[in-house]
């Protein structure tokens, strides 16, 4: 099969949807000839024109709200936010409007929109351009939250997000953009709410998201050399969360390590850990659940500090060992 980068997969999903459905369009800053801050929409204005690839002013509040209004009246907008850190400016429209409209109006209205945005550190962009704030959105009833880790998943999940009749926040990880995987040419959909077991194992379960999926797979490969067999689960969507797949895995392995790049304190790892601790899997646990997440600091600029602020492969290896070695 053909290989695509994650970035290309995102673009292809959008292009295919736009070819099929006139109601789908993109709006965002510098998404036209510039191709977006990360080049995701490059070439699209040439195919679809400026009416459907709409370059906006630097006005995150307006563009998110415009997407809500357009969605509410029959369009299916995709909003590109240049960095996920800027959701601070789009928060009201996403949280107080998009998420609530359907319920608040007694079911009479729908807001089919996708907010796509790159998250994460590793590019030296420092404190205001490197955050992983997905936990915020998971806390809001009415928002679906998607966080693909591979090109294949990105394409299929983005189609599902665009097809969804409700607002979806779609987090792309900057360091994933250049990663590649086999991606079918035809359009396909990966249902929201279905985790993927990225590697099977029996001694411990790792639940990891975004770039941490890759680090966890590296860690698992290392651990295998030492005879420790690790199962790596990528939930792919945080809301809805496929608790079943995670519970079944933990029942099998009896150990759980949760890994995300977002700051550990108040991060979604707490939710995953607690869901398991509350579930039938609790009785199968042979060791405390371990959570790995970012340290409680703004992401620093210096590259060594930047790396040290979030979990690395070694941290994951150590965490699994601690869990496995626990008697």
């Amino acid at each position, binding site marked *: 099969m053909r290989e695509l980068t994650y970035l290309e997969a995102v673009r292809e999903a959008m292009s295919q949807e736009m070819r099929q459905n006139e109601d789908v369009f993109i709006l965002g800053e510098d998404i036209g000839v510039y191709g977006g801050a990360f080049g995701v929409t490059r070439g699209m204005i040439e195919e679809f024109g400026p009416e459907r690839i709409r370059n906006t002013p630097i006005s995150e509040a*307006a563009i998110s709200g*415009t997407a809500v*209004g357009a969605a509410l009246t029959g*369009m299916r907008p995709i909003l590109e936010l240049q960095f996920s850190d800027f959701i601070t400016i789009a928060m009201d429209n996403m949280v107080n409007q998009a998420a609530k409209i359907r319920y608040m109006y007694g079911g009479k*209205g729908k807001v089919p929109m996708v907010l796509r945005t790159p998250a994460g550190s590793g590019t030296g962009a420092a404190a205001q351009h490197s955050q992983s704030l997905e936990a915020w959105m998971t806390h809001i009833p009415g928002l679906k939250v998607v966080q693909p880790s591979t090109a294949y998943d990105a394409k299929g999940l983005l189609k599902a997000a665009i097809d969804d009749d409700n607002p979806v926040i779609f987090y792309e990880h900057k360091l994933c953009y250049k990663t590649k995987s086999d991606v079918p040419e035809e359009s396909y959909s990966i249902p929201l709410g279905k985790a993927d077991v990225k590697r099977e194992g029996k001694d411990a379960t790792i639940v990891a998201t975004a770039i941490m999926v890759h680090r966890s797979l590296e860690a698992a490969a290392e651990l295998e050399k030492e005879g420790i067999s690790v199962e790596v689960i990528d939930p792919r969507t945080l809301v809805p969360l496929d608790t079943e797949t995670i519970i079944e895995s933990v029942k099998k392995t009896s150990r759980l390590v949760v890994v995300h790049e977002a700051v550990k304190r108040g991060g979604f790892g707490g939710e995953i850990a607690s869901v398991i601790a509350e579930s039938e899997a609790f009785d199968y646990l042979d060791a405390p659940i371990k959570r790995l997440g970012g340290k409680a600091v703004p992401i620093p600029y210096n590259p060594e500090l930047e790396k040290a602020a979030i979990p690395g492969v070694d941290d994951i290896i150590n965490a699994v060992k601690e869990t496995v070695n626990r008697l």
Partner: protein
Amino acid sequence: MTQKLNLPPRVAEKDLADLYKQMWQIRFFEEKVDEFFAKGMIHGTTHLAVGQEASAVGSIAVLEDRDKITSTHRGHGHCIAKGAEVNGMMAELFGRTTGYCKGKGGSMHIADVEKGNLGANGIVGGGFAIATGAALTSQMKKEGFVVLCFFGDGASNEGSFHEAINLASIWKLPVVFICENNQYGMSGPAKEMMNVGNVAQRAESYGIPGKVVDGNDIFDVMNGVGEAVDRARNGEGPSIVEAKTYRWKGHSKSDAKKYRTREEEKEWRLKDPIERMRLILVVEGLLTEEEAEKIKADAKEEVEGSVDFAANSPHPTLDDLMEDIYA
């Protein structure tokens, strides 16, 4: 048929009795709600538009049915003018399943998306971008509808005002921003909260027309808004129309009104927009005193009827709690 009054093209003299009735429906509806709140019969809070009837009715009078509006926390008048049934409105305030939002939204969220009322909004300034987005739908789908975005003097100091109107101006979207300048926010006097006399002057920042009308004179409102709506429908882009008016009651349920004088209130009561309309209609011979009385009585009766309707409507059950939510 020659007309005695200077009316915009979409309004005929024969429509005036209906508009007059709407004004009374609003007045009676608000007074009834006020009474219920005072008696503690309704939950929550509410913001009444008594004294501001002409800006709602006059603005919406010039619309076609397919046109849309976004409303505010002070939205009952807009709803009625856009054709909402007082039954469903009152039922909503009573929290019943027959309410516009099945009892889940309350006063601040009444919406009727199908009929083009995109909703009241509890967020001051929350409607600017939603209206802009709806206008974008109209433009992209070539649906030809125009959107009226109601907002207050206070809301004009929110960043969303600036971002959304700028966006609407560069894309020449068919939206008219209608400021109901009732002189105060919750308590903040408009003249202290901005350094210019008129919100309409701010149109200058966006290269669009800005016009002040007498918000207590329905004819002035209709002509001012009518022109802006025509412009929008012709693809010439947005305008700001500022209707100077006054709210007779306190900001919301509990308001000692220390921030203004009783004299000022009295002055504005003399400018009662309903009385003014009645006078003109009678003087111009478009309505007899008796007809006017009858209309008023009918309006009152309908509002009274809505109380029976609401009071006899079913309460939601706990099963309804998790309905209409999808994530």
